[in-house]
Structures are given as structure tokens and as C-alpha cells.
């Protein structure tokens, strides 16, 4: 056997092995999370190494405890979910409202400072959020916005805006200019062109951007921690879960139930729209 043959055969097996290892390493923590969340804590203490849940020991009391309101002895995650949902949806919608015209302008219209705008977004995207956090902390404390969901929504818009503009701009650039020109000849104004031609064509991509923004807002932790920590009834799911470890001793199984509640919406959204998202993220990347 020559070198080529040896390499081809061994690499074929190595490849299968590596795929299996990657699959195991990425999926296992999520499986573990799920398993722990439906086991009673006593069983976990007895046998921490077990990875299967017997039908007899299956329990959902962990979920009940996490979801119940604090007055009823629970952790109040239903309220947190409502807060998170509200903040994420509002931030997503507002981001789209602002970024669609912005991205359109950057991709199509020649205006003063267009190149600089591009650079500005990249800089903003990469700038440390902790640096921005300090003055925002100061301003919000002064303006009484600390502890309000409105302030948080505003911050999330600024966090999702650069990526949204960047992604949308790439999509708008793929729409042939001639389509817009023919609409202009038919008498459509600039806004009419955007609404009747560009938006319908970009609809799938706008969906992808919306999902991406929603995920960023739903997952965000630092700003929620800085702005909302004093107001337990305003906590988002991320913050509420993080605070579970800080206070009274909460069983690890309950913690995992909270983690599942936090993760599940994202995982469902992600698998429902995986193709849309992965293509959106890297479109234009192959240009190097």
C-alpha cells in the first residue's frame, strides 16, 4: 500500500471518529441538563454518574418550583419569561424598524460619509461592552431608568443594530438594481421602492435577522445584571437564573430545570430556522 492509500483509508475512519466526538461533546451538556432537570435531587446525590432516568424516578416538580410565583414558594420564572419575551420582542422589532432603512441606504444610496458609516459599525460591534456599561450605568441611575425594562430595550437595540445593518446590507446588495430602477420608472418613490420591491425580496433575510436579534436579546446577561439586579420582578430569565445560585441554597436539579427553560426557546427557534441563520451569518464571508 502506498502513502496515498494509507492516508485515504485512515483519514476516512478518523473523520467518522472525529464527527462522533464533536457530536458527543456539543450535544452532551444539553442532554445532561435535561436529564438532571427531571431527576429528584435525592437520586442525583445517590448516583451522580447515571445518565438515564428510570421511569419511576421521573419528576416535574423541579419545573413546578422554578415556574411558580415567589409568593407560592417558587422562583417566579413565569414572570421572568414574560419580561425576557417582552424585552426581546420589543428590541427585535425596533431594531428592524431602524436598521432596514439604514441598511438600505448603506447598500444603495451614495451619500456623504457612507464609507465611514461602515467602519463605525465595525468599531461599535467590536468595542468592549463593559466600557459602554459604565456611563450607561451612571446615566440610567441619574435618569431613573435603572430598573426599567425600557432602558434595557434601548441598550439591546444598540447591541443588535450593527450586526443587523451589516447582514441586511449584504442582502440588499444581492437584489438587482434594475428591479428598483424599473419600479422608479413606473413612478414609485424611494419609500415605495423599499416597501414594494426591496422588502418583499428580502423577507427571508429579514426573518433571519429578526431571529438573530431575538437570540442576542434573550441571551444577554451583563446589561440585565447591571440595570435590573435591584428589581426582582423585572428580572429576565438569564438574570433570574444567575441569581438562583447566589441566594438561598437551591438544588442543582432545580437549577437545571431553569436552564432548560432558558435554553429551550432558543434551541427550538434555532432548529426551526437553522438554514436561514447559518447562511445569513456567513454570506459574503467566502469572499475572504
Amino acid at each position: 500500500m502506498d502513502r496515498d492509500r494509507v492516508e485515504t483509508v485512515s483519514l476516512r475512519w478518523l473523520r467518522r471518529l472525529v464527527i462522533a466526538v464533536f457530536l458527543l461533546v456539543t450535544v452532551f451538556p444539553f442532554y445532561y441538563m435535561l436529564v438532571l432537570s427531571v431527576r429528584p435531587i435525592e437520586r442525583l446525590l445517590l448516583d451522580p454518574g447515571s445518565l438515564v432516568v428510570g421511569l419511576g424516578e421521573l419528576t416535574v416538580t423541579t419545573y413546578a418550583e422554578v415556574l411558580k410565583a415567589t409568593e407560592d414558594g417558587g422562583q417566579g420564572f413565569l414572570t421572568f419569561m414574560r419580561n425576557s419575551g417582552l424585552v426581546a420582542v420589543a428590541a427585535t422589532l425596533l431594531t428592524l424598524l431602524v436598521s432596514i432603512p439604514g441598511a438600505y441606504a448603506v447598500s444603495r444610496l451614495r451619500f456623504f460619509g457612507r464609507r465611514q458609516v461602515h467602519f463605525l459599525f465595525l468599531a461599535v460591534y467590536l468595542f468592549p461592552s463593559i466600557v459602554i456599561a459604565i456611563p450607561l450605568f451612571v446615566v440610567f441611575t441619574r435618569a431613573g431608568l435603572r430598573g426599567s425594562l425600557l432602558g434595557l430595550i434601548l441598550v439591546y437595540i444598540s447591541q443588535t443594530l450593527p450586526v443587523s445593518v451589516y447582514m441586511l446590507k449584504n442582502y440588499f446588495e444581492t437584489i438587482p438594481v434594475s428591479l428598483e430602477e424599473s419600479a422608479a420608472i413606473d413612478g414609485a418613490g424611494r419609500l415605495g421602492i423599499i416597501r414594494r420591491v426591496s422588502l418583499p425580496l428580502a423577507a427571508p433575510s429579514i426573518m433571519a435577522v429578526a431571529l438573530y436579534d431575538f437570540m442576542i436579546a434573550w441571551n444577554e446577561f451583563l446589561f440585565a445584571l447591571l440595570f435590573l439586579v435591584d428589581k426582582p420582578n423585572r428580572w429576565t430569565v438569564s438574570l433570574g437564573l444567575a441569581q438562583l445560585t447566589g441566594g438561598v441554597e437551591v438544588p442543582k436539579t432545580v437549577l437545571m430545570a431553569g436552564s432548560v427553560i432558558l435554553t429551550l426557546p432558543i434551541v427550538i427557534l434555532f432548529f426551526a430556522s437553522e438554514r436561514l441563520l447559518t447562511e445569513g451569518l456567513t454570506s459574503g464571508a467566502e469572499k475572504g
Partner: protein
Amino acid sequence: MTTATPDTGRSPTRERPVPARRRGPVTLRQRESRAGLALVAPTLLVVVAVIGIPIVWTVVLAFQRVRLATLRRTGLFGEFTLANVERVLNTPGFADTLWTTLVYSLGSTAGSILLGLVAALVVRRPFRGRTLVRASMLLPYVAPVVAVTFVWQVMLDPQLGIVNNWGQRFLGWDTPVPFLSQESTALATVIAFEAWRYFPFAFLFLLARLQAVPGELEEAALVDGATPTQRFRHILLPQLLPVIALLGVLRFIMTFNKFDDVYLLTGGAAGTEVVSVRVYEFLTARTDIGAAAAQAVVLAVVLIVFVVVYLRFFGGRRAD
């Protein structure tokens, strides 16, 4: 979505465009420029208000004596002092923090790119279930940070964790290893977590680039008798290098600023205190806003220096 700024709404293109020769320079081009500015204005406004002004303000705060208690009395342009910067640079542990941040950033960047490269190479060619495998590999990246840090904490827990349980059962460890709370393993564990969580990012970009490599290149090498490893070394790797270099700088910057992951995993204990966690401590626990701002400015300056140096070395090849 129709409620944009009024002057674009009344766009004169709605009527037949009448050439405005007499009034001189109101050309189509100018109209376009005006519409462009109007459409991009809301975006700019938000970015400047929520990000631009705060950045400038942080720099101002870094040179003022501000504490949360005295906040209401401090004006925007109070007395300026170098005390904060001096204090930050002289506080014990600052150099350690910076060093930790650097090790953490470099380790996580290298780890995530390496894993991403391997992952991209193995799922490059179609096979059954490829879409599902690819989607699963992205899970660590899309899942909420709070949830995944908790799972890791529980998995690595000395009493309840499955890693220590199996380690003792199957690998013959004598005692449980407190991965996240002892100095010798904490930083390495945090880096491993970062590599795990962010390899999908590198994976996505590298996979996209790999699929754009023209097939003829590899076929030509195949005809010339190149073995698979030779084809990788001489055909694929050179094609991937620009993306790897770009990923390197992106991941480095993002990790350098990272707060959530370290804060949630260890809280900055056991030799894992990175600069952003320290800034947070100054801001909340000590309510010393001036010192926090000074730390943040130092963080930003160090970061900018690194990026500039990096671009000097590697940036020449990238045209845009």
C-alpha cells in the same frame, strides 16, 4: 415602516422627474445623498446616543473622582485628576489581571479556531445526516451563556458532577478535582469552555470558505499524486489562511472584552480574574466609578494597541 423622516416621504420622484436645470445644483445625485442620510439617520442616532457618547464619557469619568454616592453632585466637567489611572496601575493585582486576560484571550482564540478548523474539515463533504450534525455543532454558540455555564459548573462539580464521578470510577482519580476553584486548573478550564463555546463561530466561517475553494485546484493536485495531507497542507491551508487571520483578530478582540463567561463560571476567583470582571467589581462592589472607568479605558487602550500591532503584521495582505 412607512413613517420615515418627512423629507424622504415627499420624495419628488413620485412625480415625473423634471430636470431642475434653472435652480442649478439640485441634481438626482444630491437627492440620493439626502435620502441616504435621512434613512441612515435613525441608526446613527441610536449608535451615537447609546454607544458613541458613553465611550467619550467613560474617558471623561476615568479622569474624575466619582463614586456612586457622590454621583448626583458631580458635573460632567468637574475637576480632572490622574488619581484614578494612578490608583488603577498601582493597585496590587492589576498586572496579574492583565496577564490573565491575555493568556485567556490567546488560549481561547487559538483553541476555538483549531477546533473550528477540524470541525469544518470533517463535515466538508456531504454525508447522511450532515445538516443535523452541522446544526448540533452550532448549539454551544447559540445557547444562552447563563445556561451553558451552569451545566459546565454542575458537570465539573466535585460532589455531584459527572466528570469527577466517571473520572474516579473509570480513570482511577484518587480524589475529585475541583476544576473551577483551584488555581492550577481554573484558568485552563475556563479556556476550554471558551474554545467549546466559540468554535462554532470559526467553524461557520471556515466551512463557508472551504466550500468556495474551486474543485479544480484539488483535482489538479490529485492528478499530480498529492496525498490527502499534502492536499490539505499545500492547497487548502493557503486558501484558508486569510480567514484564519481574520478570525484570529475577531475572536481575540471579542474574548479580550468578555465578561459573562468568566463571571458566571468562577466569578473571577482562583486566578481567573480578567479585566472586565475587575471593572465590574469596581463598579458595583466598591461603587468606585472613576476607578472602574479608568480600568475600562486601560482595557480599551491595550486592546487597540494589540489590534494595531496585529494588523501591522498580518493586515498587509487583506485588500479591503
